[in-house]
């Protein structure tokens, strides 16, 4: 039971990274991106391929995963971010499907639907983190989540955070105040993508195998749900949302009712959460974080 709870916490951490990224894009930038699963997959496969084929250590693959995801974020962001928000949703959704399609079909690189197994475990100072040491993995992951949280928290108070908030509230007004709208949108997108890539890296190192079936549209919707449930524009809330959603997904196993609760139960619940939150509490559980710009921060 304790082990199971650790597992939930680990998935909370992995998804919290993605949710933080989604929050920068959707909560701060006001852009509906539906492709965290795609960047997640790119990060996972970067780690999997580099580690199994070229014997790279996890720590060396981590920045590659982040940079590669960021690059794809730029690639998909540049053409679509100049457009109205609704197109972005579809284009990013399409991108996620393309990634999965390519992973499924590019046999020579990704081993197709079979995926890649036997990914080396993380080692740190000669200490190997095998799947039995869930607590050690959790510690490393928590540090990563904490660092990401601090970075994003600082970012929200920086010039970029303010610019993004302005773009979200009124794009035309922001533009006339001299904010380069496309530039900041693309920045937000790249940041959100790269942190999802890092999450993918951790996922690969935790499960020790990757296959395209993991990176479905469901993942993107789950991440979106976390941000919406917690509260858009609030990084603490994204982490809280990640925890609640993960708890819900493992509810059948936790309560021992796997035989009674249908497997579709959690997806239906995610759908309900999105609709109900939008109608009755669009600001989420915690609501948007108010930032007092008069205190601290560079002008």
């Amino acid at each position, binding site marked *: 039971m304790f082990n199971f709870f650790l597992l939930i916490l680990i998935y909370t951490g992995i998804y919290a990274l993605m949710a933080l990224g989604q929050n920068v894009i959707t909560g701060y930038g006001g852009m509906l991106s539906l492709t965290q699963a795609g960047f997640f997959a790119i990060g996972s496969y970067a780690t999997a391929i580099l580690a199994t084929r070229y014997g790279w250590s996890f720590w060396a693959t981590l920045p590659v995963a982040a940079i590669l995801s960021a690059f794809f974020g730029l690639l998909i962001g540049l053409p679509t971010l100049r457009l109205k*928000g609704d197109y972005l949703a579809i284009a990013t959704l*399409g991108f996620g499907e393309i990634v999965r399609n*390519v992973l499924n079909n590019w046999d020579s690189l990704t081993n197709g639907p079979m995926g890649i197994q036997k990914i080396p475990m993380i080692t740190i100072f000669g200490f190997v983190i095998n799947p039995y040491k869930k607590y050690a993995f959790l510690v490393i992951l928590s540090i990563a989540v904490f660092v990401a949280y601090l970075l994003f928290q600082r970012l929200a108070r920086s010039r970029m955070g303010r610019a993004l908030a302005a773009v979200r509230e009124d794009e035309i*007004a922001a533009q006339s105040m001299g904010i380069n709208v496309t530039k900041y949108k693309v920045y937000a997108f790249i940041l959100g993508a790269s942190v999802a890539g890092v999450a993918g890296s951790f996922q690969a190192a935790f499960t020790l195998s990757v296959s395209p079936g993991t990176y479905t549209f469901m993942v993107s919707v789950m991440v979106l749900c976390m941000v*919406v449930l917690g509260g858009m524009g609030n990084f603490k809330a994204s982490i809280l949302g990640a925890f609640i959603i993960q708890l819900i997904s493992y509810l059948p196993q936790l309560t021992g009712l796997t035989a009674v609760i249908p497997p579709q*139960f959690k997806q239906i619940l995610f*759908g309900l959460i999105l*609709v109900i939150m*939008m109608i009755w509490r669009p600001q989420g559980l915690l609501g948007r974080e108010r930032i007092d710009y008069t205190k601290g921060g560079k002008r």
Partner: protein
Amino acid sequence: MAIAEFFQHLMNGLTLGGIYALIALGYTMVYGILKFINFAHGDVLMAGAFIGLFVFDWLRGSAPSGVWTIISFFLAMIVSMGLSALLGMFIERVAYKPLRNATRLAPLLSAIGVSFILSNGAAWAFGTRSRKFNYPFDNTPIHIGEVVITPHQILILVVSLIMMIGLKLFVDRTRMGKAMRATSLDQSTAMLMGVNVNKVISLTFAIGSALAAVGGILIALDFKVYASMGTMTGLKAFVAAVLGGIGNISGAMFGGILLGILETFGVAVFGIPTGLKDTIAFGVLIIILLIRPEGLFGKVEKEKV
């Protein structure tokens, strides 16, 4: 490429495109009036296909074929259109109407939620196994010269043509159609002119959903009925709507047919592997967004402050 081969691919593309066009109409009509993408549209298609399947199997009984089978097929289609229209109106009422004055993101997120509820609800209720939709007629291919046409393809072409002409006449010639055009042009002015905007929006969802149900049944004859069938088909139909210029009814029809042809020729002529067939639509989407975001027939809208 031989002429016959060309016509063969063209025929296949046209039939696929006819279905895309029917579904694309729902996206484009809703976008034209509410300016948002109804993500749940593809799942209404799935619901329509399931309703059609159940009603058809129930009406048909054990009779192998004959006139009654064909009649019950069309009856099933009509029942499915009606029930899907109700479903569409219900979704609008519950999940979108309360959000009409909310931020732009709100209805989109709500629509994604509805889509998830519908597709997973169907998987729960009807199982994940795909079901066969029996042909109501003998589907032996007909040879015209070297070109092979199946009765199913003829059915698709005829039905989608009738639906599209019917819709065009309705929107262009009737009072309610005029109200729809007025609402899509300017909602508040239309309201001031005495148009019942709520009724128009309900009707738009009803028509779009009914057309999606027809598309769902037609596509189910070839690809079976399953809970997630609406996702990919819906996405492609959306691409078709964008290709034709979203909000433009004739554009959606043309975009659907063009996308069907592009997909068929992409695989058959340009040698794109079948596994990557689904990516063609998204490639088209990104290209069209880059070079002509308003679509082939769309008007460029200047944003006013």
